[in-house]
Each structure stands twice: as structure tokens, then as C-alpha cells.
């Protein structure tokens, strides 16, 4: 049986008090609860503070470019559908630089768990606005405050009929861990947007700020009802709903490829006879 110790414990480069620590803990718990062993899991990340997370546990890791974790994860999943693939990266990475891949991953519904550490700021580059930063938020790069409307990943994902759309909060580890576990179990893209205080650069959306607002959806909430999901997706104010906001059972992308039912591509030989037949057709 896999235990939390199998996932190790490492020194990090994060600031003391950062919300990332709790997310890391929740991830480990979820992996254990999912009975996954380290070598069965592939973490793909981009660049940013959040993107360092996979370095701090035992697993396969591909820490790629800023904004590009979803395509890498998609490729890896399509090469080896047996891997449990988890993307872990920041709000800037996934909704900023990587916005186009976010849309495409939802459309594909590739079986990847997408964990976005959403601290509403670019942490690693020292506090510029991210796509989820609130209007009016002042930074050194936005001295007059942010002019753009914040990106609502949940609303866009629900509008696009993503297969699994959830919001968590780093301050509620068990709740979050459970969401991640369900996300991993879900066949298809599972978006989990995790509200995460950045103690160094976000002095507005602090731990206390989130704590005061985050409220788990009631047990009777039905995440398969698109209409109400769309409504919940837009709630963001004194109350911020957390939990699984929407889900459906769209077929996972990799299931469209019969070849992948046979397992990892690397294990499959080149069919010489078929190749010959194909080449001979050029006569």
C-alpha cells in the first residue's frame, strides 16, 4: 500500500506562509487516496512558483516551458494512456501564456487533471497582474491598477461544457484533497482551480480574504445541471463557492484512438506487413 511517505518530503523555494505548501500536501493525500504509486504518475508543469511543486514530491516529472504544460501533458497521455497525468501550474501559466491550450484541452477532453494554483498574480516574476487579478489591483507594472476584466476560468470551462470543473481553496486541505482525488478519478479533463494566497505579492486576496468567502457547495448541489452550474460559476464576491461546480460524462479524448486501448505506444511494434502494403500502393 502506498503511503504519504512514498511521496517524500523536500525543501522548497517557496516563501514561508505561501499557500502552495497546503496544495502540495493536498496533492500527496489525494495521490495516496487514489492508490497511485509514484512511478504511475506523471506531473507536467510550466514555469512559475506553482510549477515548481512537482519537484517537491516523488513522481515522474516534466517541468516544461511557461504556459505550455497542457500540450506536453496531452502528448504524454496520448503516448502512454496508462500514466496518471497531472498538470500543476499557476494562473499565469494556464490562463495567460497558455490560454489557447486551456481552450483546446477542454475541447479535447483529454484525461488530464489540471491543477491551477490561482494566486491571482504572477508570483515568480515578482507580482505583476495575472489574468485572474482583480480590476483596479495595483502592481509595479500596473501602477494605475489593472484595466482588464479578470478571467473567470470556471465560467469559461462550464460554458464550454468541460467534463469536470471544480474550485478549491488551499486553506481547506481535506476538501481540496478530495477534489483532486475526484479529478484524478474523472475520465477526461478535470479542471481544479485552487485559490492560493501569495503572501509576498497579493496583499488583497489573502488567506483571511479567501477564508472568509470560500464556502463549500451544499451536498444537495447537483453539478450535472449545466444551467445552475453556469450561475454558480459566476459567483465571486462575499461568497465564493468551492467544490465540484460542473461535471458531465463526455468521452475522454484518448478513447477515440483504438491503438491506445492496447497500452503505451512504445510497446507497439511497427506492423511491417501493413507498412509494406501501404508502400506498395504507391506503385
Amino acid at each position, binding site marked *: 500500500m502506498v503511503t504519504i511517505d512514498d511521496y517524500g518530503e523536500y525543501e522548497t523555494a517557496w516563501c514561508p506562509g505561501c499557500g502552495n505548501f497546503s496544495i502540495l500536501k493536498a496533492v500527496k493525500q489525494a495521490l495516496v487516496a487514489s492508490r497511485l*504509486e*509514484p*512511478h*504511475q504518475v*506523471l506531473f*507536467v508543469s510550466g*514555469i512559475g512558483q506553482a510549477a*515548481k511543486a512537482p*519537484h517537491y514530491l*516523488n*513522481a*515522474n*516529472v*516534466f*517541468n*516544461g*516551458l511557461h504556459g*505550455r504544460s*497542457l*500540450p*506536453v*501533458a*496531452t*502528448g*504524454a*497521455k*496520448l*503516448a*502512454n494512456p*496508462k*500514466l496518471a497525468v497531472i498538470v500543476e501550474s499557476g494562473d499565469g501559466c494556464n490562463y495567460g501564456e497558455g490560454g*489557447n*491550450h486551456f*481552450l*483546446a484541452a477542454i475541447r479535447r477532453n483529454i484525461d488530464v487533471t489540471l491543477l491551477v494554483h490561482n494566486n491571482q498574480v504572477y508570483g515568480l516574476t515578482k507580482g505583476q497582474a495575472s489574468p485572474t487579478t482583480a480590476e483596479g489591483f495595483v502592481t509595479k507594472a500596473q501602477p494605475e491598477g489593472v484595466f482588464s476584466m479578470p478571467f473567470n476560468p470556471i465560467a469559461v470551462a462550464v460554458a464550454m461544457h468541460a467534463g469536470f470543473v471544480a474550485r478549491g481553496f488551499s486553506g481547506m486541505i481535506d476538501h481540496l484533497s478530495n477534489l483532486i482525488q475526484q479529478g484524478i478519478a474523472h475520465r477526461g479533463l478535470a479542471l481544479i482551480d485552487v485559490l492560493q494566497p501569495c503572501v509576498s505579492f497579493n496583499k488583497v486576496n489573502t488567506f483571511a480574504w479567501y477564508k472568509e468567502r470560500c464556502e463549500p457547495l451544499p451536498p444537495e448541489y447537483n453539478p450535472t445541471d449545466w444551467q445552475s452550474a453556469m450561475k454558480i460559476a459566476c459567483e465571486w464576491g462575499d461568497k465564493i463557492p468551492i467544490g465540484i461546480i460542473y461535471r458531465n460524462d463526455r468521452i475522454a479524448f484518448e478513447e477515440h*484512438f*483504438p*491503438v*491506445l486501448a*492496447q497500452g*503505451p*505506444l*512504445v510497446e*507497439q*511494434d*511497427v*506492423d*511491417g506487413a*501493413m*507498412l*509494406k502494403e*501501404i*508502400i506498395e500502393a*504507391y*506503385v
Partner: protein
Amino acid sequence: MPESTMNILIGGEAGQGLVTLGQLLAKSLVRSGYFIAVTQGYQSRIRGGHNTFAIRVGLDEVIAPLESLDLLVALDEDTATLHQRELSADGLVVIDRAFDVDADSFLKVPFKELAHGRFSNIAALGVVGSLLGLDDALMAKTLDDFFGKKKAHLAAENRRALKAAVEWTAAHSTAWCKLPAVSNPARRFMMNGNEAIALGAISAGLKFYAFYPMTPSTSVSVNLATHAKRMGLVVEQAEDEIAAINMAIGASFAGAPSMVGTSGGGFALMVEGISLAAMTETPVVVVVAQRPGPATGLPTRTEQADLELVLYAGHGEFPRAIFAPATVEECFHLTRKAFELAERFQTPIFLLTDQFLADSYRTVRPFDVENLSPVHVGAHAPESSPYLRFAITESGISLRLLPGMSEHLVVADSDEHTEDGHITEDLSIRTQMVEKRLRKEGWIGSLVVPPEMQGDEVPDLLLVSWGSSKGAVEETAWRLRSAKQRVATLHFSQVWPLRPEEFMRHLESARQVVSVEGNALGQLSRLIRRETGFEIKKQVLRYDGLPLTPESILRELNYGNH
């Protein structure tokens, strides 16, 4: 043997079935035992405009396109007007009787009647095939094969048009000369550059291909998509080129031999990803089919102006290899070699082709399919832990395990990393890792495809070329030699790395060296000078969007009309 070829140009608007006609005629020629080389010229539109499909045909291998025409098949009036001046002395124009143009050399055909108002292109096939002396039954079979079962309903009508055309030609046969017959034609393929790349890749073990459509690379993608289900490939159209290269890297990391295909502008978007592949030491093959730039440029034409872009693509410093196939056969074999190098050296490897070669159908001798082994991916898991993905070795190559395929954990990072793949800011490890990666370049260099020298060892004139211009340059040299000049050629089918010891003596022993390139800056010349100090002072450069031809080269060399 260049002089004994015949050059046929079919011209018309997009949407007139000109490519179908060209392919059918080309295929019929190949099946009849001839060698062909096709040059396609088309515009960035779906209907209308002026497109061409030229087939140069001969008894021996045809290596270059030619400007001078023997037979002009004009599906519209424009074609006759635009190309008549390229017609050789006893050249013939085949044209619809309906058009109001005429000359002695015109064979005016009642296409509409022959084709009952449809399939004029099939009627044209019949007329041209007959003029060339092709066998009707062979043409009919080619027609059937082409339309296959899916369009069987068209087959009968097509055959009727063909038959009518053949009969009409027999009845109105002119004095125009047929091709010399080939007895017992050998079994050969008709294949273009992009088809050969797709097949070469599959034979090398390709399992994952990602792309975003872009002329002239798209047919690599379409070919792979066509064979995907039967060959167990995953072929995916990405949301953009950035996704394509990153998907390929992810798939390769997880064990699938992977490739992407694009052209200059799309490749520009992959530049960051190339650097990622190099840093994470992930094998990936990248096909760049060149077209004229900058920016969108001339999207359907040809050029050789992205050598430098590909050579220096990616921030930071790392090893790579660049193949520039000269022929359709080389497209096949160098693609295979690219996969081998990629897997062995765990770094991006490039295939640099262009629109001319991508679309150029050729007669190709069958491949020895049985003996084409695919690449071997990854290594066996070591017995001891911890596994060090980026172990610093003398060769620079580290044992590559695949994630999920053993209990060992595989960690790769775009940041500088320790031997186990984790992010580091230790500057002494940094130095070692830079050197480890660059050591691989030495090894790659020891395996280069050497440039090919042909002709006099001590020539008066040495013509240097790379990629798809090989044939045009060799034919130029052949012509000059026929005129008693001492001319040799030096051709590069791999443009990086270069091994000066393999070609310096040729450059130095020639009285004059001229480089012939499909670009405006002489990019190979510059590279040769960078690597050897040798300056190629004269250059024949073409950058109007058309492939180099013997005539164009001779004109620039001031040898007039050879």
C-alpha cells in the same frame, strides 16, 4: 542523358482538375517504365488563378525541372499565352477547340464533346497519353485505381471520356513524336517528397505526429493521418504550432517516436519548444518545408531561405543536426536517419525541405521494406537506484528511461538541472551540464552524411549546392561538361554539422567556386565560410519563388542558352 527527356506542362485554373490530370498522367508514365520529375506551381487560392503541373519524363532518372517545354497542355487560354514562349522549336500545344487562340503548333481538341461536358481533364489525359504513345489499357487501369472503390460511380463515365479521347487522337494523329517505348517496365513507385517523409517516418517507428496545417508541409500531415489507423499512429492537429511541438515533446518523453511538420512561419513559433527539447534531451524530429518569406511571403512557392533560421533556432546553445534531402529517396532515408539520430542523441533533429521537393512526384525504386528496422526507444532500466536521467557521461549521452515503464522515476526540467533532473541553481553543475550537452555535437558530427562530389577532381568550376537544388546543379554541370568544360559539383544533403575535412580540398582545388542556392543571401556559403574561412565569391541565387533549373543557373553563370 538529360537531352533525351521530354518536358510537359499542364496549366489551368485551380478547380479544373489539373492536379488530377497531372497525377494520372505521371502515374501512367511511371507504370509505363519512365522516370519522371514533377514540378507543381500553384497559387494561394482554391479556385481560379493560374496553376501548373509540369512533368519531365525520360528513360533514365530525371533529376531537375526544366523551363523549356515540349508539350503544353492548356486547360485555359491564359496558359497558352503565358507559356507559349517557353515552347521548344518542335513543341506542341494541346488546347480546347473552344478557345479563340491558334498557331501552327496547336492541337485543338473538342474536349467538351469528348467528355460530354464533364471531366475535360480525363479527356486531356487520353489525348496526351496517346500522343506520348502510352497504352490505353494501362491508362484505364490507372484511372480505375485512382478513383478506387469510393468513387466507383464516376469510373464508367471517366473511362468513356478516356476512350473517346484516345480514339479522337488516333483519328487526328499528328506527326508529333511519341516517347521511346520501354519493354518490361520495372515496378516502381510514384511518390513526392512529403509522401516519402511520411513513409520514412512510419518505417522508422514514428508513433506520434502533431501539426498545424501550413503549406507546403500539410501533405506530410495528411499522409500520416491517412495511414494512422492502420499503422497505429496518433496524429493530432494541434491548436497552434506551439502546442504541436510541445505535444510532440510530451509524447516523446513518454516513449513515442515523435515528429512535427510545418513551414517557416509555423516553425518560428516552435523556436522556444526546440530549445525545450534540447534542454530536456527529448528526441524530436522537425520537418520544415520551406516557402518564400519573410512573414506570409509567397505561401505556395518554393525557397531555400530558412537554413539559418533552423540552424540557430532556440535560445541558448545545444546540439542539433539538419538534413536537407535532395531527392524523394533521400526524403525517405534521411527521415529515417533523423529518427535514429534523435533517439540516439536525445536532441531535436531537422529535415529541411521546400515546396518544390515536397510536391515533386518522382519515379522511385522500391524500398527494401523488410530490412527497414525502426528505432529503438529508451534504455533498459538499471538495477540500481537512484536513476539519473541526466547522468554526466563522456559521450554526453545519458541513459533514457521512460516514465511509467519501470519503477524508476523520470524527471526532466526546462531549468538547468542536476543529474537526476531536478531544478538547480548550482553554477558548477551548470557548467558541467552545458558541456555534457555540447559534447553530443561532436558525436553527431562524426556521423554526418558527407557532401557528394561529382566530376573532375580539379575542376575549373565547382558548383556547390544543398537540398532540393541538387539535380538542377548536376544537370547544369553535365551540360557544361558536354560543352567540354571542366565542371564539378559538391552537394550537401546534410547542412549541419559540417565536417570541413570532407570537402575543403574540393573547394580549394577548384579554380572557381560558385554556390547555387534558392535564397538571396547565400546562406550555405556563409555557413561554409564560418566553418572553414573559405569564401565562395560568386553565387547564383534565386528567390522569385520558383525552383532552380539548369537554364536559370546557366543564365546566371552567363553561359547563355545551353
